Structures are given as structure tokens and as C-alpha cells.
């Protein structure tokens, strides 16, 4: 079982995200970086599948050289191979990213064989373009479903569950396939201290890939206007209960 997970290095912000002076990026002066949460779950899912099906997990990212940190993190929780497509400057647009990933995946597969599963996050935590995985799947002519919160593998088919209101839908997808993973599919493990130390020694292959820019371009990032609202304090402690229930009545939710 060969599994590829595509991850993105994103800032780990607090309760307010600041923008760099030129408006082109998040101001990361105070921030650490992480793997986009859906993708962290995708890595965990891949590792679990690999553990169960004697597989190999490759993790691929397109990002700055520092994204090696996220690749090593993946290794520290069980990924086997790490690949970096280095870029400089601001993020690539979704078309360009998808094109580069497609090229890289095709090259790897030409050398080492097809990936049975290629996992993406449902969408990145930062840009939220909702499309890179689907574009790659289309280019590779593979089936793809987004929003996956459960995978069972049997006989060359991935049975993939997608959460809907009040339950889930099931897709039976023939492999090789591409799935967009959502947080909640699992609770990702933390790296062990030994895992962290071992990941330091893992090899990261970096290969530059060229791709042309797409038709969507960033003008600037900015923070939405904050709604400043006065908070009405209904009271302190259990004595506030009548005031709360008055409010509930007023809002008509107490019927």
C-alpha cells in the first residue's frame, strides 16, 4: 500500500491575525508554524492505514525551505518519505500549486509506482481555496471525494465516509484514488521524544518544479472590521439564572 499525503505549512495564529505591511502575507513575526489541521489528520490516517496494511507513507509539500519542519514533524509521527517542492516568495495560487504537485506526483510514480491513495486536507487553514486536491485528481484522472471523515479499505476500493448534517454519506471509490480529509477522522498522535529525535535524521528530498501562474491573483490581505459590541452582564453566579431565563423567553427559544 503506497500512500501520499500532501500537506501545507501554515502559521499557527492566536485570536487575532495580523497582516504584513505589504498586505501580501500573514505577519508571522510572533507565530510558529504548523501543518494545516485537516492535513495533520490526513498524515495520521495514512500512518494508521500503513500500519494496518503494511504500507509506506510519503509526505509531500510545496512551500518555503522551512516547510522541512512540517515534513520532519510528519516523520516524527510515522511518515516514511519526505519530499519538498521548494518555492520562494508568496504562496502560489491554487492552479499553479496543483500543477506543480501533479508534475511531482507523476515523476515519483514513474520511478516508484502508483500511489494507491493520495490524501489532501479538505482545505488549507489559511487560504482556504477548496480545490488543489480536486485539480490534482482531475489531472491524474483519478476519482476524488472531499470532506472525508472515515476510510475503510477492501479489495482495491476505498469506502469513504463524509459527514453530513445528522449522519454521513458513504462513497465507494476505486483505487488509485484521491481523498480530501477533514479533521475529526482521527485524533492525531503526538510525536514521541524518540520519534522527534529520529525525524531529525530522516532524509528530505527537495526537487524544484516549475508551473505557470493561474488566473487568480492576490491584491492584499486585510483584517475584517471588528464589530465592537457592548456585553450586557446579566449577573454573577447562580443568582443570574432568572435574568438568563428572561432573556431566553425574550428570544423565543423557551417554547
Amino acid at each position, binding site marked *: 500500500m503506497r500512500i501520499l499525503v500532501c500537506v501545507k505549512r501554515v502559521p499557527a495564529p492566536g*485570536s487575532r491575525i495580523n497582516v504584513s505591511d505589504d498586505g501580501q502575507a500573514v505577519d508571522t513575526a510572533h507565530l510558529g508554524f504548523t501543518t494545516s489541521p485537516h492535513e495533520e489528520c490526513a498524515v495520521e490516517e495514512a500512518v494508521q492505514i500503513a500500519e494496518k496494511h503494511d504500507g509506506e507513507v510519503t509526505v509531500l509539500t510545496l512551500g518555503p525551505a522551512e516547510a522541512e519542519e512540517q515534513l520532519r514533524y510528519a516523520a516524527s509521527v510515522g511518515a516514511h518519505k519526505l519530499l519538498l517542492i521548494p518555492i520562494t516568495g508568496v504562496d502560489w495560487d491554487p492552479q499553479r500549486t496543483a500543477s506543480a504537485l501533479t508534475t511531482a506526483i507523476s515523476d515519483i510514480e514513474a520511478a516508484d509506482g502508483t500511489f494507491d491513495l493520495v490524501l489532501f486536507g479538505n482545505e488549507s487553514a489559511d487560504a482556504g481555496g477548496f480545490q488543489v486536491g480536486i485539480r490534482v485528481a482531475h489531472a491524474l484522472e483519478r*476519482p476524488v471525494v472531499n470532506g472525508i471523515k472515515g476510510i475503510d479499505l477492501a479489495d482495491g476500493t476505498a469506502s469513504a465516509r463524509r459527514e453530513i448534517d445528522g*449522519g454521513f454519506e458513504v462513497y465507494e471509490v476505486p483505487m488509485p484514488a484521491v481523498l480530501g480529509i477533514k479533521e475529526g477522522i482521527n485524533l492525531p498522535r503526538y510525536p514521541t521524544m524518540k520519534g522527534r529525535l529520529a525525524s531529525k535524521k530522516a532524509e528530505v528530498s527537495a526537487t524544484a518544479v516549475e508551473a505557470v501562474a493561474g488566473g*487568480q491573483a492576490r491584491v492584499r490581505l486585510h483584517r475584517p472590521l471588528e464589530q465592537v459590541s457592548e456585553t450586557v452582564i446579566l449577573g454573577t453566579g*447562580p443568582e443570574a439564572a432568572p435574568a438568563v431565563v428572561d432573556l431566553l423567553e425574550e428570544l423565543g*427559544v*423557551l417554547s
Partner: protein
Amino acid sequence: MSLLILCDHDRGTLDEASLEALTFGRELAARAGIACEAVVIGAGADTALAPLATHGAQRVHLAGHDLLTDYGPEAWGETLTQLARSIGATAVMACGTDRGNEVLAHVAARLDEPFVANCIDITPGDTWTMTRVQWGGSLLEDATLDAGIRVVSVTHHAVEATLADTPAEGSLVHFTPELGVEAVRTVVKDRVVLTQGITLSTSPVVVGGGRGVGSEDGFAKLEDLAGALGGVIGCSRAVTNNGWRPHSDQVGQTGTRIAPDIYIAAGISGAIQHWVGAMAAKNILAINTDGEANMVAKAGFAVIGDLHKVIPAITEEIIRRRG
């Protein structure tokens, strides 16, 4: 020359979010000087047509095919692509729901065009300019779009669905795409219903708990209150990470977006992750020992106190009033 809007439905029940897309799209189409058209795809689509004209669809395409038994991202994407090409649409749009964004990504991939997801404002022109959300709404991006066919989604809840000033004609046109079996590799095969009735994303009352609840058992008090109000439980990411509640209860950027009449947020500090999932609530009541917590500052109403004492008191008061 038209803006083609995907109107989503679930086996014949129109998704309300589609009306938001129509509301947004008819204005956009008017400013762009193009027609506003809607499309409904698949089995059962014909029962979902009624409100489309009153919300501004000048033409409604009803796309059907023997293979279109249920929702399928690839089949829907392929269908929409073919329709857009066949009517010469200059733009394709949907509401930025899970499905809407998914189908549009397929369309864009097939058209080899850009796709701009989750816009809140679009100015048409030779080059379209738009404002879209990033970070689940914590940040906005001004962007430009150069494309032969513009593929865009409008952020869910960015506009409220309203009737058009004058109902559009809404003439019905049937469309049958050419689909091969590979287009239906990814069609819903089965559905499993876990919750009957109201759910986290639709409930008018959500009682949310955060780290301050302290334990899995601590949620019993919240459940009592939710029960008394006919609402459901929500929680923060910290709670899910601690294993106190399932991820399906998680409200937030990577969990469920809620929009209840009232969100009672107990022991929740109000980190951005959580806030973006809760900010569409019409009213928020924060219960926190810390009067200076973020959630308290952002909420319309607050009670300062220990949730373990305040919540049972509210439940009791409700029961008392009901006699």
C-alpha cells in the same frame, strides 16, 4: 452571456444556501449586464424549482441523466461544466458550502480555469475583483480574477437570502449531459443517519462547553440545559482534543459552523478557531469565571461565574417557570 448558479438540493429538498447564492448572483449579474440563470442537477431536482424564479433566476436549467441518481461530485461537476459550455456561460457560481465548493472545483479543473472560493463581494469587469475570506473569516483577501469563464463561490451566510424585487421569469430548460461511467465513480452509495431531527448546524439553541467544563462528566450539566431548551451540545477544539466529546460536536473553523438563535458558550475562552464557527450565532451568552475572557468580550450577554453552578441554576429556573 450569463451567470450560471448551481442550486443544490438533497434528493429534492432545496438547500437554503442556494437562495443566498441566487440573491448574491442576481445582483452580480445585473451589474455585469448578463443574465442570471440557475441549474438544478439530478434525480428529484424538479421538486426543488419553486423558489428559484422568485429569487431572481431568469432561466432555470434542469439537468438530468440516468446515472445522476444521487449526489456525486464528479458527475455534478461534469454536468455543470457541459451546461456552462453549452449555454455560453461567462461565469459559474454556487454557495460556498462543502458541496458547492467541491463541485465548482471540479468545474474549474475541467474548464482549466481559476476558481475563487468563498467571496463576500465581487465587482465585475474585464478583470473581476473580489473580496474573499481566508482563515475561516478571520482574514479577508482582495483578489483579482482573469478567466474565460469565471468560477466563484459566495461565502455561506455572507448575504441573507431575499426575494427579488420582481420575480424573474424562471423559464424551465431541460439539459441532459453526456456522462460516462467514470463520472459516477464517486456517487453517494449509502447514507447513515445518526441523529434524527435537529443537528448542531441547524439547532436554534446550542449549549457549548470549553476547557472550563473540566471533564467528560462535566458535560452532563450542559446536556441537562440543552435538553430543557430542546437544543444540542457543542464544544471547543480543546474539548475534542481532550477526548471529552466527539469531533462532531466541535464548533469552529475545523468543526461545524453554527448559526443558532442563541449560543450559550460556557467555560470557553474564545480562541479564533472556535469563534469563527460561532460568530454566525444570532445571540451569544457567555458564562465564564473570568469576566475578561475573549468570549465574554465578544458575546452580547454574559454571566460571570462558575458554569458548574450557573448552568444547573438556569436549568432549574426553566423547569420552575414551566411548573
